[in-house]
């Protein structure tokens, strides 16, 4: 009897050990390339060529100082903040306004309008890229901030509308009706009743919009031509991608490009994972 119990516990202990080994393996796999990058950004290019895998013999920061200035990073980061900030605020406003109307104001048009947004969830950037480029040129918004912002807001809208409408629908009708009987207009109800109540889903939509917009790179690449309007990812690609032999600077530029999202992630870990799960269930 004791023997059986012992072998069982040994076996389960080995199983546990194996599970830990597997989990640690995947964790190391996930972060090793990033650590490798950070480590090498502190080497001079000459040292990197001699020593590609080990720690730097001497930690130098010259790569960062050079890249920061030559890659015009302050300007790129500012642009990214502008694009992401305005897109997120506008998406939240417009999609919750419409979401409230769809959910709580009776109108025959809702079915068609809301449906058209839901179809938008399935549309891909590729299918609109070329026409968008032609249209933006045609209306004279090529190479302007507005010409980037309007597409960004439009692309973020379907998800905002979808999540916003679902959430606001779940708010009891009685709340809206009693406010109506008290004589409140719909716009007032939206501002003072719905907005505070929808704050949790607002966070989810904001997170999805921030991550999507900050990392976006293809559209802004074709809609703008001047360096002054580019965002951080495009700048990193132009600067670091062109440095095919100056690895030290390239790695430093990549680390600079990586830091904002890393900080954002470490601060909003819980909200981000919640948002991703919510956004995925749309299918």
């Amino acid at each position: 009897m004791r023997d059986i119990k012992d072998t069982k516990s040994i076996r389960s202990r080995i199983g546990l050990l194996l599970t830990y080994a597997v989990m640690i393996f995947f964790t190391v796999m996930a972060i090793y390339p990033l650590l490798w990058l950070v480590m090498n950004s502190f080497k001079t290019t000459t040292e990197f060529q001699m020593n590609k895998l080990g720690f730097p013999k001497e930690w130098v920061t010259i790569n960062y100082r050079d890249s920061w200035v030559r890659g015009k990073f302050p300007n790129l980061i500012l642009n990214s903040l502008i694009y992401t900030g305005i897109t997120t605020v506008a998406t939240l406003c417009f999609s919750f306004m419409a979401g409230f109307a769809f959910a709580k104001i009776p109108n025959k048009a809702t079915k068609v309008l809301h449906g058209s947004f839901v179809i938008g969830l399935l549309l891909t950037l590729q299918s609109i890229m070329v026409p968008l480029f032609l249209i933006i040129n045609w209306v004279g918004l090529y190479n302007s901030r507005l010409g980037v912002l309007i597409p960004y807001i439009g692309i973020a809208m379907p998800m905002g509308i979808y999540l916003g409408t679902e959430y606001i629908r779940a708010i009891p009708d009685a709340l809206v009706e009693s406010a109506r009987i008290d004589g409140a207009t719909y716009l007032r109800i939206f501002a003072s009743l719905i907005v505070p109540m929808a704050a949790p889903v607002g966070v989810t939509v904001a997170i999805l919009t921030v991550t999507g917009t900050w990392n976006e790179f293809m559209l802004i690449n074709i809609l703008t031509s001047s360096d002054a309007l580019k965002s951080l990812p495009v700048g990193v690609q132009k600067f670091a991608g062109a440095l095919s032999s100056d690895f030290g600077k390239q790695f430093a530029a990549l680390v600079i490009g990586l830091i904002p999202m890393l900080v954002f992630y470490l601060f909003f870990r819980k909200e981000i994972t919640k948002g991703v799960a919510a956004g995925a269930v749309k299918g």
Partner: protein
Amino acid sequence: MPKEHTLLDAKREQKRAYWTLVLPGFLIYISVMAFPTIFSIFLSISDYNGGKLFGGKPISFVGLKWYGRLFVDEYFYLALKNNLYIVLVSVFGQIPLGFFLAYVLYRGIVKKADFFQTMIYLPTVISTVVIGILWKSFFAPYGAFPELVRLFNPTYEYGISNHPMLPVLFVILWMYTGMYLIIFIANLQKIDGAVIEAARIDGASETQVLGNIILPALSGVLVTTAILAISGSLKSFDLIYVMTAGGPANRTSVLSIYMFDKAFKGAPNYPLANAISTVMVIISFALIGLTKWVEGKFGGRE
């Protein structure tokens, strides 16, 4: 009489409020997404090739000419094949792996679940551009990969790979598995823990719990993730564009890169580019439909 008057006012206010709230968002959406989608199909059957859209040379329709051109282009099939590889890696690599990791963390088999989750999800949040250049340098002849291989096989010489898609597929697996981990964890947490505990107390093994409680509860989520993986795979652009730009010799090209090249590299061929994107949308819808059909036929327990 006065009551009727206020009722009419209220109706009017209701209508006005509805449109005030809906129109700003709807107009942006229509002009940025809905109209361009229709415009894209229109372009794909036209002979428009740059120049003024209106008032220039009149645009005439050429029917399905560009689609015909597409289906005889060997590069189209090369790109399509690579897209299918990505679909396979996503559906049979990312989803099972993500599920396995989520299951281990959810069942509390290991401690520090939060730490593991945070680290494994990390690659997903970082800009694709950074990831792409990082891996490009890692796999390059001067990068760390040949050096790593030499640790195990000292005679390794860097040569042009016969399978240039392998590093790309690896990075895709590396980058997005965390996303499926998160989706599965979120949905596993919705399962009533008491049911699992009760089954365990009644003597059900871990495997039985997995097969009889957890998998059936997740069948809907599995379909959703499959759809997500398929449509995501067909969309993949950024990472490959940065890592290889489709090279060498288009061997890592995918449909979106093929389209991008036709529209923005060299002399633009907008109709052909739009024919490609229309075909992409059709393939994506067909695969999603197929997944739903398979679910209805074989699964369907939600």
